[in-house]
């Protein structure tokens, strides 16, 4: 029984978070003393996948899989996993993975555990730790089923490089028709999505109005970051809904989270607390966010952010 990890692709390339997913799957396969198979769709150059130690790679090239479709994807992964006699399937924590995992679990008779933050602490009974109560707590869960789908949280495990020379598999898999049709797709051009970002620059009601977001966008651009906002900011239409982060918005688990003019309400913190480094800029020394951050600056965002942008630009000019 092997471990299989399904990794997502975009523009014929593995998505960035894939390498963490493979690193986790490799470590699990080692713990179980078994093989690791990578399953992916339509990736042009699979060489970079072998930097993280797979034993085998199955890259299915099929136009039917060029766009995400929950039914087609779940079916393809399920068929591959039964042909390869897989016990554990490892996937990431993206929106699409969370969409397909429940279907996949029923198709493969597996138990699905989402939001997993570490390797099993015990194999018998199989025990995993997951994040729960919207990041306000963790729980240890025993899984009785032999077949398990593990969905891991972004940035919870990290990367472990381990070069291998994987065997390249070839499998014919029939993709069924889907009864769910995509009518259209609208992608916000150019900008980095919160899920893909390493850095998120987020701003709140302290910015006073949508016209003041220029400096936030500039900071994001300098850092190669995604932009985000607090809930009231999206409720008032200052920023698009897709930027709303927190307990009822998108979760953020990045390396760096910069919060500007955000008070740090419990619902906001719940969604962003798993970011590694949190920097807060707020004019009120008593803002609750200062209790939950790593670095803080007390001051007026309208004064600090433009200055910071200039400093970052000169730093980059000298050091790049």
């Amino acid at each position, binding site marked *: 029984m092997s471990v299989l990890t399904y990794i997502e692709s975009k523009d014929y390339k593995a998505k960035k978070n894939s390498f963490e997913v493979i690193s986790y799957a490799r470590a699990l396969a080692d713990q179980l003393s078994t093989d690791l198979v990578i399953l992916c769709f339509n990736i042009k150059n699979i060489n970079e996948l072998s930097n993280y130690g797979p034993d085998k790679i199955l890259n299915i090239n099929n136009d039917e899989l060029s766009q*995400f479709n*929950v039914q087609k994807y779940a079916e393809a992964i399920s068929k591959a996993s039964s042909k390869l006699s897989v016990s554990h399937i490892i996937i990431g924590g993206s929106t*699409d993975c969370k*969409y*397909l*995992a*429940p*279907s996949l*679990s*029923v198709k493969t008779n597996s*138990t*699905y*555990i*989402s939001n997993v933050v570490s390797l099993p602490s015990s194999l018998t009974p199989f*025990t995993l730790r997951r994040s*729960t109560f*919207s990041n*306000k*707590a*963790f*729980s*240890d*869960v025993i*899984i*009785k*089923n032999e077949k398990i789908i593990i969905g891991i949280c972004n940035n919870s495990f990290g990367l472990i490089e381990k070069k291998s020379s994987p065997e390249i598999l070839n499998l014919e898999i029939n993709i069924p028709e889907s*009864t*769910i*049709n*995509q*009518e259209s797709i*609208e*992608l*916000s051009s150019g900008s980095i*999505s919160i*899920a*893909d970002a390493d*850095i998120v620059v987020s701003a709140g009601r302290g910015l006073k109005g949508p016209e003041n977001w220029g400096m936030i966008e500039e900071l994001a651009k300098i850092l*190669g970051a995604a932009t985000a906002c607090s809930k009231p900011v999206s*409720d008032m239409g200052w920023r698009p*809904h*897709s930027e709303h982060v927190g307990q*009822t*918005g998108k979760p953020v688990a990045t*390396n*760096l989270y910069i919060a500007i003019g955000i008070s740090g309400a*419990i619902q906001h913190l719940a969604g962003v*607390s798993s970011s590694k*480094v949190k920097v807060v800029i707020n004019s009120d020394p008593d803002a609750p966010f*200062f209790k*939950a951050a*790593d*670095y803080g*600056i007390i001051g007026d965002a309208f*004064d600090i952010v433009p*200055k910071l942008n200039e*400093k*970052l630009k000169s*730093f*980059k000019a000298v050091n790049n």
Partner: protein
Amino acid sequence: MKILVCISCVPDTTSKINFIENDTTFDTNGIQFVINPNDEFGLTRAMWIKEMDNSTVDTINVGLENTEPILKKTLAIGADKAIRINEKPTDGFRVAKLISDYISNNNYDLIIAGRESIDYNGTMVPGIISEILNINFITNCVGLEIDGNKITAKREIEGGTEILSCNLPAIIGGQKGLVEESDLKIPNMRGIMQARQKPLEIIETENDEIGTEIIKFYKPKEKEEIKMIDSENLDELVEIFNKNAKVI
């Protein structure tokens, strides 16, 4: 049309989360329970459909007696009937199985659940129901239109949105955007009075093997002291971005 709204009963978003009995049990002392926010958007969306075409809207929860005030609230908001499956929900697959059994005996056209419950965060119940019943499933819905036998849903995806369509019967996972927060229906006096006459059906379950068991809870590690940076000394922050966060 017959609509079923799945209601998960969760601690209010402002709740401090604590555990008792050697960290094996969630401490409900002083906790106010509410309709899971993602389900609340779905419930209001269902009410709008009902207002348009006289659909019936039922609500369902898998939970113990303490969830009844929440189910009564859904009746006061306008649901026709509430169903409580009498079991403590601890496993997403089991909850989905119990709801699926109810649906297959009662033939609903549209089932509305939430994208995710904010306590368990399984993101699994509606997806598993769809697979057990072999019906269409669309999640992360920020918009839903119904035209005869066809639904069209706007789904939030990474970096944008997509429009998906499928035939009924179907199940969706809703979130904010399905309706706006300012549109959320709240019970009024008349609704509360009417709710008293509405049925709240209780269903007993049979013992069955449950596939997972939560053995312990943990609270996140206490945060280390924050390091303050003087607003006149932004070079220090640039240095931190470079050295500690390694982002530039």
